[in-house]
C-alpha cells in the first residue's frame, strides 16, 4: 500500500534523518511499483531515479527533520481505523436523517476539546478524524486545543466524551455505473447551485471543494464505464492536488487581513 498518516514503517519518533529517508525511499519505491505496473528495465531505472530525486528534494525541503512520517504502525492503529469506520457509518446516518427530514432538526454547536497528545501528527490525525466523521468538523487547532463545530448538540457531547481522543493517541453490470454517475452529476448540479447562490465567498469555496471530490469519483466511474481503467491516473491527480486551491484561498485571506485592509469592503463593490 502507499501510506496513511501513520502507517509508515520503522521510524520511531526519534529515528534519525537517514532512517526516515530510507523509510521514505522504501514507501516511494513501493508506490512507484504499484502505480506503474510496467516492469521494463528502462522504467525501473527511471523509477529508481525518480524516487532518489524525490528523497533528495524532501531532504532539501527538510521534510524529514521531524517525523511527520511518524510511526505507530500496529494493531492499535488498525483497530483505530476500524473504530473510526464504525463511527463514520453511524454519524453518516445521523446527518442523513437531518438532511432528509423536512424540519431540518439541527442544533449547531461549537465545542472545545483538549487533545491528550501534543504530538503534531496525533493532533493532525485527531483533527482530520473529527472532520471525516460527518456531523463534526474541526475548524481551528491552536496549542493543542481543537475547536469543533458539531451539527447537533449530541454530536458535540460525543466528541467531548473523548473516545476518539483516547483512541488517537471487463466489467459487467454497466447499468449500475449509470446509476451512480447520475447521482454524482445531480450532486454536481446541486453544488453548482450552491456556488452560484453563495452567499459568502466561502460557500463558493465549499462548492469548489465538493466539485473536486465529485470529479474524482466521476472520473473513476467513467474510466470503468469506458473500459479504460488504466486512466485512473487522472482521478489520482485530482485526489492529490485539488486541495491546493483551498489552501491558496486561506493563504490569500490570511495575508490580506495581516495587511490591515478592511475585512469586508464588499459594500463598496456594489
Amino acid at each position, binding site marked *: 500500500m502507499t501510506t496513511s498518516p501513520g502507517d509508515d514503517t520503522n521510524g520511531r519518533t526519534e529515528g534519525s534523518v537517514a532512517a526516515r529517508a530510507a523509510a521514505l525511499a522504501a514507501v516511494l519505491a513501493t508506490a512507484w511499483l504499484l502505480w506503474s505496473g510496467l516492469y521494463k528495465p528502462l522504467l525501473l531505472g527511471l523509477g529508481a531515479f525518480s524516487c532518489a530525486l524525490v528523497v533528495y528534494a524532501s531532504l532539501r525541503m527538510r521534510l524529514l527533520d521531524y517525523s511527520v512520517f511518524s510511526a505507530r504502525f500496529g494493531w492499535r492503529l488498525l483497530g483505530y481505523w476500524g473504530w473510526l469506520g464504525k463511527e463514520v457509518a453511524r454519524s453518516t446516518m445521523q446527518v442523513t436523517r437531518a438532511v432528509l427530514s423536512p424540519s431540518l432538526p439541527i442544533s449547531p454547536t461549537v465545542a472545545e476539546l483538549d487533545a491528550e497528545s501534543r504530538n503534531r501528527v496525533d493532533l493532525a490525525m485527531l483533527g482530520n478524524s473529527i472532520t471525516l466523521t460527518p456531523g463534526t468538523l474541526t475548524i481551528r487547532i491552536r496549542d493543542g486545543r481543537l475547536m469543533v463545530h458539531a451539527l447537533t448538540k449530541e454530536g458535540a457531547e460525543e466528541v467531548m466524551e473523548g473516545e476518539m481522543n483516547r483512541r488517537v493517541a471487463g466489467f459487467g453490470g454497466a447499468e449500475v455505473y449509470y446509476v451512480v454517475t447520475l447521482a454524482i452529476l445531480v450532486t454536481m448540479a446541486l453544488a453548482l447551485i450552491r456556488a452560484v447562490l453563495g452567499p459568502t465567498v466561502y460557500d463558493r469555496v465549499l462548492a469548489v471543494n465538493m466539485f473536486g471530490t465529485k470529479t474524482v469519483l466521476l472520473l473513476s466511474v467513467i474510466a470503468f464505464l*469506458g*473500459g*479504460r481503467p*488504466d*486512466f485512473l491516473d487522472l482521478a489520482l491527480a485530482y485526489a492529490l492536488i485539488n486541495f491546493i486551491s483551498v489552501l491558496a484561498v486561506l493563504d490569500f485571506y490570511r495575508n490580506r487581513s495581516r495587511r490591515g485592509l478592511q475585512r469586508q469592503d464588499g459594500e463598496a463593490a456594489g
Partner: protein
Amino acid sequence: MNVLGLYNYWVFAVLLMIGFYAVIANTNLIKKLIGLSIFQAAVFLLYITMGKISGGTAPILPKGVSDAVYSNPLPQVLILTAIVVGISTTALGLGVLVRIKEEYGSIDERDIQEIDRQ
C-alpha cells in the same frame, strides 16, 4: 440525436461569446483576462469535439487489441500544449496588470484612460 449532435458546437458558440462579452462589456482588466480564459476554453472544446469519433476511445493503443476505434490524436496534441501555453500567457497578462496597478493605482479601463488623458 440529429439535433443534439450539434450541441457541443452550440456550447462552443455560447462559451465563446460569453468570454467575448466579458472582454468587451467589462472595464475591469482582470475580468477581461478571465473572459479570455473562457474564450480560450471554448476553442479547446471545439477542437477536442471535432476529434471525437462515436464509439471511439482514447488514442492510447493497448496491447493485443487491434479492432478498436480511436479518436483523432492530432487535436489533442494541439490543445494539450495550448493549455500550458494558455496558463503561461495568462500569467504574463496578470503580470502586466500588476504593473499597471502599481503605475496607475487602478486596473479599471476608465481610470487608466482618465489618467492618460491628463
